[in-house]
Each structure stands twice: as C-alpha cells, then as structure tokens.
C-alpha cells in the first residue's frame, strides 16, 4: 500500500499530462516569423475605388486589400463570405494602435475549426492612404485577441468582410449583440453607402487553366459614372433569408446547373479559392452520371452544350463547367479537381496542393451534400469569379452580375 501511495504523485502527473496527447500538434520551438505583404496600391483612380490585389501567401491567389485603420495600413483578406472587419490585435499593436479591451465581446469559428474572439472597438477606417473614402465616425472593428484564424504569422492580418445584407444577423460576429454593419454602410457620404461594385479581371496563368487576377472595389451604386448598374442582371435577395453574404437564390436561378430542381443557393465568396458544388451539379456539368462521378469511372462525354472536356490532369480531373444566370448560359470555367481517391466525394490530402501548378485551383464537391429541399448551398469562390472579366454589384437588396 505504501508503495502505491508513493506512486500517487507520478500517477497524478501522468493523467494531468494525458489530455495533451489528443490535441495540439503544433509542436514546440519558436513560432514562424510573420510574412509580410506589399501594400496594395493602384494607379490613381477615382476616390471611391479601392484596389484589390492577389497573393499566394495564404493559398493560391488570395485576394486582399489594404485598409487604413487610424491611418495605419493593414492587409486584410477580401472576403464576401463574412460581414465586418476583423483585425489581429498583435498587428494593431505592432502598428502602435492599442485598443483597450471592453465588454463588447465576440467569438466564433470558421468551418475549418479556426476561431476568432475578442472585443469590438471604434476606429477610423479609410480605403486609401489619402484621398479615399473614410468612415464618418469611429467604425466598429473586431479586435481578434484569442483567435487563430489569422495568426500573427499569417501574411493576412485579418478579414475585410464585405458580406452585405439588410440583416446582419448572420454576420461574422452575429448574434445581434454587436453592431457590425459592413464598411459600405458606415462609409462617408450617402452617395457611397448603398452598395458596391467589384471588378475582377483574370489573368490566365502559364499552365493554361488556372487564373490569378486583379481588380477593384467601386463604392456606391448609381451615384457616379463609374458605379452605374446599367446592364446588370439583378437577383434580389430572398426575403425569407437573412444571409449576410451575396447569394443568388435558386428561385432566381442558381449558378451551377442542377438536374434535380436547382433549389439551392449560390454564394459568391471571394474568401475561398475553391468551388463547392453538389456532386449532382458537377456530374451534370461534366455530362456524366452521378454514380459514375462517385466511382470515378470517368469517360469523355458526348457532345453537350455545357461540358468542354473532362480529362485526367495531374491526378485530378480537368472539368469544364458551365454557369447560368437565370436560364441564360453565360460563362464556362475550367477547374482541376482533387487527385484521384477512392471516396465518393472529393477528399484530398494536403499533398494535393503539390499536385497542381502554383495558382491552380481545385474544385471539390460540397463537404456535405446540400439537399435541394433543404435549401442547400454552394460556394462560388474565386475560380468562378475569375473565369472572365466580370463586374458584380452587391447591395442590401440583392446582387447583380455583368459581363463587359
């Protein structure tokens, strides 16, 4: 018994240590040094424009903007998938901006399990170093103190959430407790607070099928010659929804063509360089049966108006997929799927990133099959948005697309 008693401290310590076995994995050592991005400048343009740059620092061709907070520049992910401005506290402190914590807190997570948490405080936000648009009063930005979605080692110092809706209840810091209108709703002068245009121009990479791009945000709608909405196909928001990101509802016509009814939502998401679609939509676009897609028994399709090619490329599939606005076929994009695997869905290992050229995109199906009857959703990330020169407008009342 005494021997057992002598072992108590050791046993106790052992079990205190055990919980650490299951998680973590970050390893020891010093954290990686922060990667810096160039300030996103552009040639002088109208004061209501803001340049969009692309970087490979956090995945292939991630769009970012340089936002000026209290006069200091911060490179933030241009993200229409969320609402509000999130900035890493350490980045703010490094720039000499020390905001006192308060009780106006927030917390949440992204789908990959990374988190954001902290407090909300006011700051002046400007779109350019000088001569741009600025918020008329202190704009509420979210100071990320405890999250890991944008770690201090990341080139991106936070999230520039440009999701927009008449409701912000599904915003990045949702819940209704924190007022987080998107930037355009807080920007100076009523001429620029009713929406924005995004112009994205693709540049085809040397591999022949992947894209990088450039672009700009143009604030305001129909208030200046450069933000006219003439010629846009307009899709009103579904009034029954409270999405805070740009959504083309299936009632207006989804973007991909689903053979089973089209009742799902296409979210235009600049925060992802992937496209997520239903298996059935991919199979339809590819001109093959869903079961064939699931079993990877691919074959060159017979002639269809939608599919251009389906061939094995670097272990994955080169799919050419058509997109519709309403019932009108308006664009086609090529994607590279994940390297082959034995699963019904496109799961791929991290090494998949080495299987495609730098800047190449990977298309995968939805992680969870969205059901048409359940208002399934699909994300149209940059591969779609960069298929060709494109304007799209976002307003609290809906979104529009225009191909010049």
């Amino acid at each position, binding site marked *: 018994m005494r021997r057992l008693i002598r072992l108590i401290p050791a*046993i106790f310590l052992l079990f205190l240590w055990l919980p650490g076995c299951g998680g973590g994995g970050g390893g020891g050592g010093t954290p990686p040094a922060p990667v810096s991005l160039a300030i996103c400048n552009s040639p002088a343009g109208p004061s209501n424009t803001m340049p969009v740059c692309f970087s490979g620092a*956090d995945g292939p061709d991630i769009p970012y903007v340089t936002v000026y907070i209290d006069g200091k520049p911060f490179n933030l992910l241009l993200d229409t*998938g969320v609402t509000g401005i999130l900035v890493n506290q350490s980045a703010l402190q490094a720039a000499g901006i020390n905001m006192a914590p308060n009780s106006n807190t927030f917390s949440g997570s992204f*789908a990959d399990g990374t988190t954001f948490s902290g407090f909300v405080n006011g700051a002046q936000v400007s779109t350019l170093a000088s001569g741009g648009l600025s918020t008329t009063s202190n704009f509420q930005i979210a100071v990320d103190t405890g999250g890991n979605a944008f770690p201090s080692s990341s080139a991106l110092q936070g999230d520039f959430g440009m999701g927009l809706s008449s409701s912000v209840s599904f915003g990045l810091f949702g819940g209704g407790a924190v007022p987080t209108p998107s930037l355009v709703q807080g920007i100076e002068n009523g001429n620029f607070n009713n929406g924005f245009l995004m112009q994205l121009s693709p540049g085809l990479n040397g591999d022949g099928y992947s894209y990088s791009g450039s672009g700009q945000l143009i604030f305001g709608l129909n208030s200046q010659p450069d933000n006219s909405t003439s010629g846009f196909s307009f899709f009103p928001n579904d009034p029954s929804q409270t999405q805070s990101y740009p959504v083309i509802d299936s009632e207006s016509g989804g973007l991909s063509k689903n053979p*089973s009814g089209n009742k799902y939502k296409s979210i235009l998401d600049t925060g992802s360089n992937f496209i997520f679609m239903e298996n059935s939509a991919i199979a339809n676009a590819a001109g093959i049966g869903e079961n064939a897609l699931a079993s990877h028994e691919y074959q060159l399709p017979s002639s269809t108006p939608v599919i251009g090619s389906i061939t094995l490329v670097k272990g994955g599939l080169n799919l050419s997929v058509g997109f519709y606005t309403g019932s009108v076929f308006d664009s086609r994009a090529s994607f590279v799927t994940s390297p082959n695997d034995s699963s*019904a869905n496109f799961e791929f290992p991290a090494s998949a990133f080495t299987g495609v050229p730098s800047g190449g995109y990977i298309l995968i199906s939805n*992680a969870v*099959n*969205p059901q048409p009857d359940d208002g399934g959703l699909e994300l149209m990330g940059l591969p779609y948005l960069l298929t060709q020169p494109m304007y799209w407008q976002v307003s609290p009342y809906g979104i529009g697309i225009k191909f010049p």
Partner: protein
Amino acid sequence: MKKALLILFSILLAQICVYGGVCGAWAAVGDTYNVMAQKYGAPARVPLKRAFAPAQAERLWNAGAKNYSFKIGGFTVYAAFNSSGVCFRMVALHSRTLPPASIFVGRLAGTRPKVLSRIPRRAIALQYGAGANAVIYRSFGLPGNFNVEAYSKALEP
C-alpha cells in the same frame, strides 16, 4: 490517506471517462440505434433524402438504411443507420455555430485526428481512428451557416 486515495481514484476514473470514452457518455457514429435513442431520446424518423443526395438515398434505401433526427447539444443531427441498426453517418445541416467533432466521433474525440484536407476558413476533413474503426469528420460553410458530417465507410451499407 484512504480519503486521499479515494479522491485520486475518482480523478482517475473521471479522466478515463472523459478521454477514454468508456463511461457511456458518447453516442455517435458506430453506436447502435438503441444507444443513441437512450442517450438523446426518442428520435424522429426522417427520409434518407434529408441527409443524402437523391441517388445515394435511393441506394441506401434499397440496402435497408434508416434515417432519424436527434437533438444533440443544441444541434439537429440526422443519423443514418444500416440494416444492423448501427449508425454509419451523422449530418448537421445549416448550423449557425460549428458542431464540434466530439458529438459525432464519440469516444474517438480524445484521439489525435489526421488532417485529410483543409481549405482555410471554409472546410476541413479529419480522420479519427484508423482502419475499420476510422470515422471521418468533415465541415463546410460560412460563419452562420455550417454543414457538418461524420461517417464510417466500413459501416456504410
């Protein structure tokens, strides 16, 4: 001293329960319908197409699979059972907050998962366990609208 021993073994037991998952605290992929019903209450029977693509739902229907919805940790979770009454897939659709892996993978939650894929901020696929016992957890979506599933390929009809 006996009191100290009693406290110590209580702590050990709690640790084993939490990290070993052997105290009946879990009901997840790999558990039977009875276990899950006991844990989460009588479920509602729902069509397979609520959690599967139409073609897949038809195939599973023909294989004798059944689908129920449970309320687990504030989430509505669809659980599909094979013809032996064992759960092979769980799905949570349109969850406002991200359902944690622990409610899907059960006793494997304390193990270190293998990252199968990760798309920054939008999706992740994790594998808990290995071989026939492997459970895949996948999440997808935007803040405020998450879809999550967990499944065992070995148990699928």
